[in-house]
Protein backbone atom coordinates (compact mmCIF):
# COMPACT_ATOMS: atom_id res chain seq x y z
CA UNK A 1 0.00 0.00 0.00
CA UNK A 2 1.57 3.24 -1.06
CA UNK A 3 1.19 6.67 0.43
CA UNK A 4 -1.64 7.72 -1.86
CA UNK A 5 -3.72 4.71 -0.94
CA UNK A 6 -3.22 5.43 2.75
CA UNK A 7 -4.36 9.00 2.28
CA UNK A 8 -7.28 7.87 0.14
CA UNK A 9 -8.54 5.45 2.78
CA UNK A 10 -8.01 8.03 5.47
CA UNK A 11 -10.20 10.50 3.62
CA UNK A 12 -12.72 7.75 2.82
CA UNK A 13 -12.92 6.86 6.48
CA UNK A 14 -13.48 10.48 7.42
CA UNK A 15 -16.19 10.90 4.81
CA UNK A 16 -18.04 7.72 5.66
CA UNK A 17 -17.83 8.22 9.42
CA UNK A 18 -18.90 11.83 9.37
CA UNK A 19 -21.55 11.12 6.74
CA UNK A 20 -22.95 8.43 8.99
CA UNK A 21 -22.94 10.93 11.83
CA UNK A 22 -24.84 13.43 9.69
CA UNK A 23 -27.54 10.85 9.03
CA UNK A 24 -27.73 9.21 12.41
CA UNK A 25 -27.13 12.03 14.84
CA UNK A 26 -30.24 13.17 16.67
CA UNK A 27 -28.78 16.57 17.41
CA UNK A 28 -29.06 18.76 14.33
CA UNK A 29 -26.07 20.90 15.30
CA UNK A 30 -23.92 17.78 15.53
CA UNK A 31 -25.17 16.71 12.14
CA UNK A 32 -24.39 20.12 10.65
CA UNK A 33 -20.88 20.13 12.05
CA UNK A 34 -20.30 16.56 10.95
CA UNK A 35 -21.21 17.71 7.46
CA UNK A 36 -18.15 19.92 7.61
CA UNK A 37 -15.85 16.90 7.82
CA UNK A 38 -17.67 15.21 4.97
CA UNK A 39 -17.19 18.25 2.77
CA UNK A 40 -13.56 18.50 3.79
CA UNK A 41 -12.97 14.88 2.92
CA UNK A 42 -14.49 15.49 -0.49
CA UNK A 43 -12.17 18.43 -0.96
CA UNK A 44 -9.32 16.09 -0.11
CA UNK A 45 -10.48 13.72 -2.82
CA UNK A 46 -10.57 16.50 -5.36
CA UNK A 47 -7.06 17.48 -4.38
CA UNK A 48 -5.93 13.87 -4.84
CA UNK A 49 -7.46 13.93 -8.33
CA UNK A 50 -5.17 16.89 -9.12
CA UNK A 51 -8.08 19.29 -9.42
CA UNK A 52 -6.82 21.78 -6.89
CA UNK A 53 -9.13 24.57 -7.95
CA UNK A 54 -12.16 22.37 -7.46
CA UNK A 55 -10.89 21.30 -4.02
CA UNK A 56 -10.45 24.86 -2.83
CA UNK A 57 -13.77 25.87 -4.37
CA UNK A 58 -15.37 23.03 -2.43
CA UNK A 59 -13.98 24.44 0.82
CA UNK A 60 -14.79 28.01 -0.17
CA UNK A 61 -18.37 27.45 -1.26
CA UNK A 62 -19.57 24.53 0.81
CA UNK A 63 -17.63 24.94 4.04
CA UNK A 64 -17.28 28.70 4.02
CA UNK A 65 -20.66 29.54 2.54
CA UNK A 66 -23.39 26.98 2.59
CA UNK A 67 -22.46 25.22 5.79
CA UNK A 68 -22.17 28.51 7.66
CA UNK A 69 -25.61 29.39 6.36
CA UNK A 70 -27.05 26.06 7.50
CA UNK A 71 -25.45 26.35 10.91
CA UNK A 72 -26.64 29.90 11.29
CA UNK A 73 -30.17 28.85 10.49
CA UNK A 74 -30.13 25.91 12.86
CA UNK A 75 -28.47 27.89 15.61
CA UNK A 76 -30.90 30.77 15.42
CA UNK A 77 -33.96 28.55 15.33
CA UNK A 78 -33.02 26.13 18.08
CA UNK A 79 -31.19 28.25 20.60
CA UNK A 80 -33.01 31.53 20.46
CA UNK A 81 -36.57 30.27 20.22
CA UNK A 82 -35.78 27.70 22.90
CA UNK A 83 -37.15 24.83 20.82
CA UNK A 84 -34.84 21.84 20.80
CA UNK A 85 -34.50 20.74 17.22
CA UNK A 86 -34.08 16.99 17.13
CA UNK A 87 -34.82 14.35 14.60
CA UNK A 88 -37.18 11.87 16.14
CA UNK A 89 -38.49 8.43 15.12
CA UNK A 90 -40.30 8.73 11.83
CA UNK A 91 -42.38 5.53 11.80
CA UNK A 92 -41.98 2.18 10.14
CA UNK A 93 -43.65 3.16 6.86
CA UNK A 94 -41.08 5.87 6.31
CA UNK A 95 -38.29 3.47 7.12
CA UNK A 96 -39.61 1.17 4.44
CA UNK A 97 -39.82 3.99 1.92
CA UNK A 98 -36.34 5.15 2.80
CA UNK A 99 -34.91 1.68 2.48
CA UNK A 100 -36.63 1.17 -0.86
CA UNK A 101 -35.34 4.45 -2.27
CA UNK A 102 -31.83 3.74 -1.04
CA UNK A 103 -31.82 0.29 -2.60
CA UNK A 104 -33.07 1.68 -5.90
CA UNK A 105 -30.46 4.41 -5.95
CA UNK A 106 -27.69 2.00 -4.98
CA UNK A 107 -28.73 -0.45 -7.70
CA UNK A 108 -28.95 2.29 -10.28
CA UNK A 109 -25.57 3.71 -9.38
CA UNK A 110 -23.84 0.36 -9.45
CA UNK A 111 -25.49 -0.48 -12.78
CA UNK A 112 -24.34 2.83 -14.20
CA UNK A 113 -20.89 2.32 -12.79
CA UNK A 114 -20.42 -1.14 -14.29
CA UNK A 115 -22.06 -0.46 -17.63
CA UNK A 116 -20.75 2.96 -18.54
CA UNK A 117 -17.63 3.24 -20.66
CA UNK A 118 -15.06 5.16 -18.72
CA UNK A 119 -12.68 7.21 -20.74
CA UNK A 120 -9.24 6.12 -19.65
CA UNK A 121 -6.77 8.47 -21.18
CA UNK A 122 -3.16 8.29 -20.12
CA UNK A 123 -2.00 11.60 -18.69
CA UNK A 124 1.12 12.50 -20.57
CA UNK A 125 1.94 15.46 -18.39
CA UNK A 126 0.51 16.34 -15.00
CA UNK A 127 -0.77 19.89 -15.43
CA UNK A 128 0.80 22.50 -13.23
CA UNK A 129 -2.55 23.93 -12.32
CA UNK A 130 -6.09 23.38 -13.44
CA UNK A 131 -6.98 26.98 -12.89
CA UNK A 132 -5.70 28.30 -16.22
CA UNK A 133 -7.58 25.64 -18.16
CA UNK A 134 -10.75 26.30 -16.17
CA UNK A 135 -10.42 30.01 -16.75
CA UNK A 136 -9.96 29.65 -20.48
CA UNK A 137 -12.86 27.26 -20.94
CA UNK A 138 -15.14 29.35 -18.74
CA UNK A 139 -14.53 32.48 -20.77
CA UNK A 140 -14.52 30.82 -24.19
CA UNK A 141 -16.54 27.64 -24.51
CA UNK A 142 -18.92 28.11 -21.59
CA UNK A 143 -19.22 31.87 -21.62
CA UNK A 144 -22.99 31.80 -21.97
CA UNK A 145 -23.46 29.47 -19.02
CA UNK A 146 -21.03 31.53 -17.03
CA UNK A 147 -22.87 34.75 -17.76
CA UNK A 148 -26.24 33.20 -17.05
CA UNK A 149 -24.99 31.95 -13.72
CA UNK A 150 -23.64 35.42 -12.96
CA UNK A 151 -26.98 37.02 -13.83
CA UNK A 152 -28.78 34.46 -11.71
CA UNK A 153 -26.58 35.28 -8.74
CA UNK A 154 -27.12 38.98 -9.30
CA UNK A 155 -30.87 38.46 -9.37
CA UNK A 156 -30.65 36.46 -6.17
CA UNK A 157 -28.61 39.23 -4.57
CA UNK A 158 -31.04 41.94 -5.59
CA UNK A 159 -33.97 39.78 -4.53
CA UNK A 160 -32.45 39.22 -1.11
CA UNK A 161 -31.88 42.93 -0.67
CA UNK A 162 -35.45 43.64 -1.81
CA UNK A 163 -36.91 41.10 0.61
CA UNK A 164 -34.90 42.51 3.47
CA UNK A 165 -35.98 46.01 2.54
CA UNK A 166 -39.65 45.17 2.01
CA UNK A 167 -39.96 43.71 5.48
CA UNK A 168 -39.10 47.07 6.91
CA UNK A 169 -41.72 48.88 4.83
CA UNK A 170 -44.44 46.37 5.75
CA UNK A 171 -43.55 46.71 9.41
CA UNK A 172 -43.91 50.46 9.45
CA UNK A 173 -47.15 50.24 7.45
CA UNK A 174 -48.70 47.57 9.64
CA UNK A 175 -48.08 49.40 12.88
CA UNK A 176 -50.13 52.43 11.92
CA UNK A 177 -50.50 53.72 15.44
CA UNK A 178 -49.84 57.24 16.61
CA UNK A 179 -46.18 56.74 17.29
CA UNK A 180 -45.38 55.58 13.80
CA UNK A 181 -47.40 58.36 12.17
CA UNK A 182 -45.55 60.84 14.31
CA UNK A 183 -42.33 59.30 13.13
CA UNK A 184 -43.49 59.58 9.55
CA UNK A 185 -44.28 63.23 9.98
CA UNK A 186 -40.91 63.80 11.51
CA UNK A 187 -39.22 62.07 8.65
CA UNK A 188 -41.16 64.17 6.18
CA UNK A 189 -40.22 67.33 7.95
Amino acid at each position, binding site marked *: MNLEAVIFYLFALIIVASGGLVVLSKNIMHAAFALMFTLFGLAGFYAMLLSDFLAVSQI*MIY*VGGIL*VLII*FGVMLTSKITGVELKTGPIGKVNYLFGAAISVIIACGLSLLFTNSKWIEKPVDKIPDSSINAIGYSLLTEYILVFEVAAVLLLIALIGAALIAHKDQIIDSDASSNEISTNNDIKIKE
Partner: protein
Amino acid sequence: MENHQFLFNFISEYTGDILAGVLIAIIPLALLLVYALVAIYGELKIASFIQLKLGPMRTGKWGLLQPVAEVFKLLQKEDITPDGADKPLFNLAPFIIFLGCYAALSVLPLSSHFAPSGLNIGLFFIIAISSLAVLGIVMGGWASNNKYSLIGAMRSVSQIISYEIPAAMCILGVASMAHSLDMNVISAQQQGGFWNWYVLGGPAGISKIWLIPFTVVMFIVYFVTSLAETNRTPFDVPEGESELVAGYHTEYSGMKFAFFYLAEYGNMFVVSAIMTVIFFGGWSSPFGDFLNSPIWQIFWFIAKSMFFVGLQIWLRWTLPRTRVDQLMYLCWKILLPLSMVCFLAMALGGMLY
Protein backbone atom coordinates in the same frame (compact mmCIF):
# COMPACT_ATOMS: atom_id res chain seq x y z
CA MET B 1 8.25 27.73 -10.13
CA GLU B 2 9.76 24.52 -8.98
CA ASN B 3 12.38 25.90 -6.68
CA HIS B 4 10.02 26.41 -3.76
CA GLN B 5 10.48 22.69 -3.13
CA PHE B 6 14.18 23.13 -2.60
CA LEU B 7 14.03 22.38 1.11
CA PHE B 8 11.69 19.45 0.65
CA ASN B 9 13.98 17.87 -1.91
CA PHE B 10 16.98 18.56 0.28
CA ILE B 11 15.43 16.85 3.31
CA SER B 12 13.81 13.98 1.45
CA GLU B 13 17.18 12.93 0.08
CA TYR B 14 18.13 11.91 3.60
CA THR B 15 14.85 10.91 5.19
CA GLY B 16 12.41 9.82 2.53
CA ASP B 17 9.29 11.59 1.38
CA ILE B 18 6.95 10.95 4.31
CA LEU B 19 9.31 12.10 7.02
CA ALA B 20 10.34 15.07 4.90
CA GLY B 21 6.69 16.02 4.55
CA VAL B 22 6.20 15.85 8.30
CA LEU B 23 9.31 17.90 8.94
CA ILE B 24 8.24 20.54 6.44
CA ALA B 25 4.81 20.64 8.09
CA ILE B 26 6.41 21.23 11.46
CA ILE B 27 8.27 24.33 10.28
CA PRO B 28 5.19 26.60 10.11
CA LEU B 29 4.07 25.29 13.49
CA ALA B 30 7.43 26.13 15.06
CA LEU B 31 7.36 29.49 13.34
CA LEU B 32 3.85 30.12 14.66
CA LEU B 33 4.76 29.21 18.23
CA VAL B 34 7.90 31.33 18.31
CA TYR B 35 6.09 34.18 16.61
CA ALA B 36 3.25 33.96 19.16
CA LEU B 37 5.71 34.40 22.02
CA VAL B 38 7.25 37.43 20.32
CA ALA B 39 3.87 38.92 19.46
CA ILE B 40 2.49 38.51 22.98
CA TYR B 41 5.60 40.15 24.39
CA GLY B 42 5.37 42.92 21.80
CA GLU B 43 1.71 43.48 22.54
CA LEU B 44 2.33 43.76 26.29
CA LYS B 45 5.29 46.08 25.85
CA ILE B 46 3.77 48.34 23.20
CA ALA B 47 0.56 48.61 25.21
CA SER B 48 2.55 49.63 28.27
CA PHE B 49 4.81 52.09 26.48
CA ILE B 50 1.86 53.81 24.83
CA GLN B 51 0.33 54.23 28.28
CA LEU B 52 3.68 55.45 29.68
CA LYS B 53 4.09 52.32 31.75
CA LEU B 54 6.91 49.83 31.88
CA GLY B 55 5.08 46.62 31.11
CA PRO B 56 6.26 43.24 32.35
CA MET B 57 9.65 43.60 34.02
CA ARG B 58 9.94 40.81 36.57
CA THR B 59 10.14 37.64 34.49
CA GLY B 60 13.65 37.67 33.17
CA LYS B 61 15.53 40.66 31.87
CA TRP B 62 12.95 43.32 30.83
CA GLY B 63 10.26 40.67 31.32
CA LEU B 64 11.44 38.74 28.28
CA LEU B 65 10.13 35.48 29.70
CA GLN B 66 6.65 36.88 30.32
CA PRO B 67 4.99 35.14 27.33
CA VAL B 68 6.57 31.85 28.39
CA ALA B 69 5.23 32.37 31.88
CA GLU B 70 1.78 33.13 30.49
CA VAL B 71 1.80 29.99 28.41
CA PHE B 72 2.78 27.90 31.41
CA LYS B 73 0.11 29.58 33.48
CA LEU B 74 -2.50 28.67 30.89
CA LEU B 75 -1.25 25.11 30.71
CA GLN B 76 -1.52 24.68 34.46
CA LYS B 77 -5.06 26.02 34.68
CA GLU B 78 -7.94 23.70 35.20
CA ASP B 79 -9.60 22.66 31.98
CA ILE B 80 -13.25 23.37 32.62
CA THR B 81 -16.15 22.21 30.50
CA PRO B 82 -19.40 23.79 31.66
CA ASP B 83 -22.21 21.53 32.70
CA GLY B 84 -24.73 22.52 30.05
CA ALA B 85 -22.14 22.65 27.29
CA ASP B 86 -22.24 20.45 24.26
CA LYS B 87 -19.07 18.55 25.13
CA PRO B 88 -17.83 17.20 21.78
CA LEU B 89 -18.33 20.48 19.96
CA PHE B 90 -17.04 22.50 22.90
CA ASN B 91 -13.81 20.54 22.94
CA LEU B 92 -13.43 20.52 19.18
CA ALA B 93 -13.91 24.25 18.55
CA PRO B 94 -10.47 25.59 19.59
CA PHE B 95 -8.72 23.05 17.44
CA ILE B 96 -10.86 23.87 14.42
CA ILE B 97 -9.99 27.54 14.80
CA PHE B 98 -6.33 26.74 15.20
CA LEU B 99 -6.50 24.41 12.20
CA GLY B 100 -7.74 27.26 10.01
CA CYS B 101 -4.85 29.46 11.05
CA TYR B 102 -2.25 26.70 10.68
CA ALA B 103 -3.53 25.58 7.29
CA ALA B 104 -3.29 29.14 6.04
CA LEU B 105 0.37 29.21 7.06
CA SER B 106 1.08 26.23 4.87
CA VAL B 107 1.02 28.20 1.62
CA LEU B 108 2.97 31.27 2.68
CA PRO B 109 6.20 31.53 0.72
CA LEU B 110 8.84 32.40 3.28
CA SER B 111 11.51 32.62 0.62
CA SER B 112 11.82 32.05 -3.08
CA HIS B 113 13.26 28.65 -2.26
CA PHE B 114 10.89 27.66 0.48
CA ALA B 115 7.14 27.56 0.84
CA PRO B 116 5.74 24.73 2.98
CA SER B 117 3.37 23.92 0.17
CA GLY B 118 3.85 25.64 -3.19
CA LEU B 119 0.19 25.66 -4.04
CA ASN B 120 -0.41 27.57 -7.25
CA ILE B 121 -3.77 28.82 -6.06
CA GLY B 122 -2.39 29.84 -2.69
CA LEU B 123 -4.34 33.10 -2.39
CA PHE B 124 -7.64 31.42 -3.17
CA PHE B 125 -6.77 28.67 -0.71
CA ILE B 126 -6.13 31.21 2.04
CA ILE B 127 -9.47 32.94 1.48
CA ALA B 128 -11.23 29.58 1.55
CA ILE B 129 -9.46 28.13 4.55
CA SER B 130 -9.96 31.23 6.66
CA SER B 131 -13.66 30.38 6.68
CA LEU B 132 -12.77 27.49 8.98
CA ALA B 133 -12.19 30.02 11.73
CA VAL B 134 -15.81 31.13 11.29
CA LEU B 135 -17.03 27.59 11.82
CA GLY B 136 -14.82 27.15 14.86
CA ILE B 137 -16.12 30.36 16.37
CA VAL B 138 -19.76 29.37 15.81
CA MET B 139 -19.03 25.94 17.20
CA GLY B 140 -17.40 27.30 20.35
CA GLY B 141 -20.00 29.98 20.86
CA TRP B 142 -22.92 27.66 20.38
CA ALA B 143 -21.52 24.77 22.40
CA SER B 144 -20.70 26.95 25.41
CA ASN B 145 -24.39 27.18 26.26
CA ASN B 146 -23.94 30.79 27.23
CA LYS B 147 -25.85 33.79 25.94
CA TYR B 148 -22.81 35.98 25.68
CA SER B 149 -20.82 33.33 23.87
CA LEU B 150 -23.63 32.84 21.39
CA ILE B 151 -24.08 36.54 20.74
CA GLY B 152 -20.32 36.96 20.43
CA ALA B 153 -20.14 34.10 17.98
CA MET B 154 -22.98 35.51 15.89
CA ARG B 155 -21.44 38.95 15.83
CA SER B 156 -18.12 37.48 14.92
CA VAL B 157 -19.51 35.42 12.09
CA SER B 158 -21.55 38.24 10.60
CA GLN B 159 -18.52 40.49 10.87
CA ILE B 160 -16.07 38.05 9.31
CA ILE B 161 -18.42 37.09 6.49
CA SER B 162 -19.13 40.73 5.71
CA TYR B 163 -15.51 41.75 5.71
CA GLU B 164 -14.46 38.79 3.62
CA ILE B 165 -16.03 40.50 0.61
CA PRO B 166 -13.86 43.64 0.53
CA ALA B 167 -10.87 41.49 1.47
CA ALA B 168 -11.54 39.16 -1.42
CA MET B 169 -11.91 42.22 -3.67
CA CYS B 170 -8.45 43.41 -2.66
CA ILE B 171 -6.92 40.01 -3.25
CA LEU B 172 -8.69 39.71 -6.59
CA GLY B 173 -7.45 43.11 -7.62
CA VAL B 174 -3.86 42.13 -7.05
CA ALA B 175 -4.46 38.74 -8.62
CA SER B 176 -5.81 40.39 -11.75
CA MET B 177 -2.70 42.55 -11.94
CA ALA B 178 -0.37 39.65 -11.28
CA HIS B 179 -2.20 37.20 -13.54
CA SER B 180 -1.61 34.56 -10.90
CA LEU B 181 -2.85 33.23 -7.62
CA ASP B 182 0.47 31.69 -6.69
CA MET B 183 1.94 33.65 -3.83
CA ASN B 184 5.45 32.73 -4.79
CA VAL B 185 4.93 34.04 -8.32
CA ILE B 186 3.33 37.23 -7.02
CA SER B 187 6.30 37.78 -4.75
CA ALA B 188 8.75 37.10 -7.54
CA GLN B 189 7.02 39.64 -9.79
CA GLN B 190 7.67 42.36 -7.26
CA GLN B 191 11.42 41.90 -7.13
CA GLY B 192 13.71 44.79 -7.91
CA GLY B 193 13.12 47.36 -5.24
CA PHE B 194 10.12 48.74 -3.44
CA TRP B 195 9.12 50.70 -6.54
CA ASN B 196 7.85 47.41 -7.98
CA TRP B 197 5.63 46.52 -5.07
CA TYR B 198 1.95 46.26 -5.86
CA VAL B 199 1.12 48.89 -3.29
CA LEU B 200 2.97 51.26 -5.62
CA GLY B 201 1.35 49.97 -8.77
CA GLY B 202 3.39 46.90 -9.50
CA PRO B 203 6.30 46.26 -11.83
CA ALA B 204 5.12 48.27 -14.84
CA GLY B 205 7.51 51.13 -15.31
CA ILE B 206 6.73 54.82 -15.07
CA SER B 207 3.40 54.66 -16.90
CA LYS B 208 1.76 52.94 -13.95
CA ILE B 209 1.73 56.18 -11.97
CA TRP B 210 -2.02 56.75 -12.40
CA LEU B 211 -2.58 53.42 -10.64
CA ILE B 212 -0.80 54.30 -7.43
CA PRO B 213 -3.71 56.03 -5.63
CA PHE B 214 -5.95 53.05 -6.31
CA THR B 215 -3.46 50.51 -5.06
CA VAL B 216 -2.73 52.54 -1.96
CA VAL B 217 -6.44 52.85 -1.19
CA MET B 218 -6.77 49.13 -1.85
CA PHE B 219 -4.02 48.43 0.63
CA ILE B 220 -5.74 50.55 3.27
CA VAL B 221 -9.02 48.77 2.60
CA TYR B 222 -7.31 45.43 2.98
CA PHE B 223 -5.62 46.51 6.18
CA VAL B 224 -8.95 47.55 7.70
CA THR B 225 -10.63 44.32 6.68
CA SER B 226 -7.72 42.32 8.04
CA LEU B 227 -8.26 43.98 11.40
CA ALA B 228 -11.91 43.02 11.28
CA GLU B 229 -11.24 39.46 10.18
CA THR B 230 -8.93 38.81 13.10
CA ASN B 231 -11.38 40.38 15.56
CA ARG B 232 -8.84 42.96 16.61
CA THR B 233 -9.61 46.36 18.07
CA PRO B 234 -11.23 48.59 16.83
CA PHE B 235 -13.37 45.77 15.45
CA ASP B 236 -13.39 43.49 18.47
CA VAL B 237 -17.16 43.69 19.00
CA PRO B 238 -17.40 39.88 19.19
CA GLU B 239 -15.34 39.92 22.35
CA GLY B 240 -16.05 43.37 23.68
CA GLU B 241 -15.59 42.80 27.38
CA SER B 242 -17.82 45.73 28.33
CA GLU B 243 -20.75 44.05 26.60
CA LEU B 244 -20.13 40.34 26.23
CA VAL B 245 -17.64 39.32 28.95
CA ALA B 246 -15.23 37.82 26.44
CA GLY B 247 -17.46 36.84 23.56
CA TYR B 248 -17.24 33.40 22.07
CA HIS B 249 -14.39 32.22 24.30
CA THR B 250 -16.01 33.23 27.58
CA GLU B 251 -16.34 29.68 28.86
CA TYR B 252 -12.93 28.45 27.81
CA SER B 253 -10.03 28.00 30.16
CA GLY B 254 -6.63 26.44 30.30
CA MET B 255 -5.23 24.76 27.25
CA LYS B 256 -8.27 25.37 25.08
CA PHE B 257 -8.20 29.07 25.82
CA ALA B 258 -4.51 29.01 24.92
CA PHE B 259 -5.50 27.66 21.53
CA PHE B 260 -7.92 30.53 21.01
CA TYR B 261 -5.19 32.92 22.01
CA LEU B 262 -2.68 31.28 19.72
CA ALA B 263 -5.15 31.27 16.85
CA GLU B 264 -5.84 34.98 17.30
CA TYR B 265 -2.18 35.85 17.11
CA GLY B 266 -1.64 33.33 14.34
CA ASN B 267 -4.41 34.94 12.31
CA MET B 268 -2.79 38.32 12.83
CA PHE B 269 0.37 36.92 11.31
CA VAL B 270 -1.48 35.30 8.44
CA VAL B 271 -3.31 38.45 7.39
CA SER B 272 -0.09 40.44 7.76
CA ALA B 273 1.73 37.89 5.63
CA ILE B 274 -0.97 38.07 2.95
CA MET B 275 -0.64 41.83 3.03
CA THR B 276 3.10 41.47 2.67
CA VAL B 277 2.79 39.14 -0.27
CA ILE B 278 0.13 40.92 -2.26
CA PHE B 279 1.15 44.53 -1.61
CA PHE B 280 4.66 44.62 -0.24
CA GLY B 281 6.68 42.27 -2.34
CA GLY B 282 6.58 39.16 -0.17
CA TRP B 283 10.09 37.90 0.34
CA SER B 284 11.71 40.27 -2.13
CA SER B 285 14.16 42.77 -0.80
CA PRO B 286 13.08 46.41 -0.89
CA PHE B 287 16.46 47.38 -2.38
CA GLY B 288 16.56 45.45 -5.60
CA ASP B 289 19.16 42.74 -5.61
CA PHE B 290 20.77 44.01 -2.43
CA LEU B 291 20.43 41.36 0.34
CA ASN B 292 18.16 39.26 -1.84
CA SER B 293 19.62 35.81 -1.21
CA PRO B 294 17.16 33.07 -0.14
CA ILE B 295 18.18 33.35 3.52
CA TRP B 296 17.77 37.11 3.54
CA GLN B 297 14.41 36.68 1.86
CA ILE B 298 13.17 34.84 4.95
CA PHE B 299 14.31 37.80 6.99
CA TRP B 300 12.55 40.29 4.71
CA PHE B 301 9.34 38.31 4.72
CA ILE B 302 9.20 37.99 8.49
CA ALA B 303 10.32 41.58 9.04
CA LYS B 304 7.60 42.95 6.77
CA SER B 305 4.95 40.73 8.34
CA MET B 306 6.01 41.68 11.83
CA PHE B 307 5.83 45.33 10.84
CA PHE B 308 2.16 44.91 10.05
CA VAL B 309 1.58 42.92 13.21
CA GLY B 310 3.14 45.84 15.07
CA LEU B 311 0.87 48.22 13.18
CA GLN B 312 -2.14 46.20 14.29
CA ILE B 313 -0.99 46.30 17.90
CA TRP B 314 -0.34 50.03 17.64
CA LEU B 315 -3.85 50.60 16.28
CA ARG B 316 -5.33 48.44 18.99
CA TRP B 317 -3.99 50.76 21.66
CA THR B 318 -5.02 53.86 19.74
CA LEU B 319 -8.64 53.39 18.78
CA PRO B 320 -11.74 52.64 20.82
CA ARG B 321 -14.13 49.90 19.84
CA THR B 322 -16.66 50.63 17.10
CA ARG B 323 -20.35 50.04 17.49
CA VAL B 324 -21.88 47.09 15.64
CA ASP B 325 -23.86 49.24 13.22
CA GLN B 326 -20.81 51.44 12.55
CA LEU B 327 -18.91 48.27 11.80
CA MET B 328 -21.40 47.19 9.19
CA TYR B 329 -21.70 50.72 7.80
CA LEU B 330 -17.95 50.82 7.32
CA CYS B 331 -17.92 47.48 5.58
CA TRP B 332 -20.87 47.77 3.23
CA LYS B 333 -21.00 51.45 2.51
CA ILE B 334 -17.36 52.50 2.53
CA LEU B 335 -14.97 49.62 2.10
CA LEU B 336 -16.97 47.69 -0.46
CA PRO B 337 -17.56 50.61 -2.89
CA LEU B 338 -13.97 51.76 -2.47
CA SER B 339 -12.62 48.31 -3.09
CA MET B 340 -14.85 47.89 -6.16
CA VAL B 341 -13.67 51.14 -7.70
CA CYS B 342 -10.09 50.23 -6.98
CA PHE B 343 -10.63 46.73 -8.28
CA LEU B 344 -11.88 48.10 -11.59
CA ALA B 345 -8.83 50.34 -11.86
CA MET B 346 -6.48 47.52 -10.97
CA ALA B 347 -8.15 45.15 -13.40
CA LEU B 348 -7.65 47.78 -16.09
CA GLY B 349 -4.04 48.02 -15.01
CA GLY B 350 -3.77 44.26 -15.22
CA MET B 351 -5.07 44.34 -18.79
CA LEU B 352 -2.78 47.18 -19.85
CA TYR B 353 0.48 45.92 -18.38
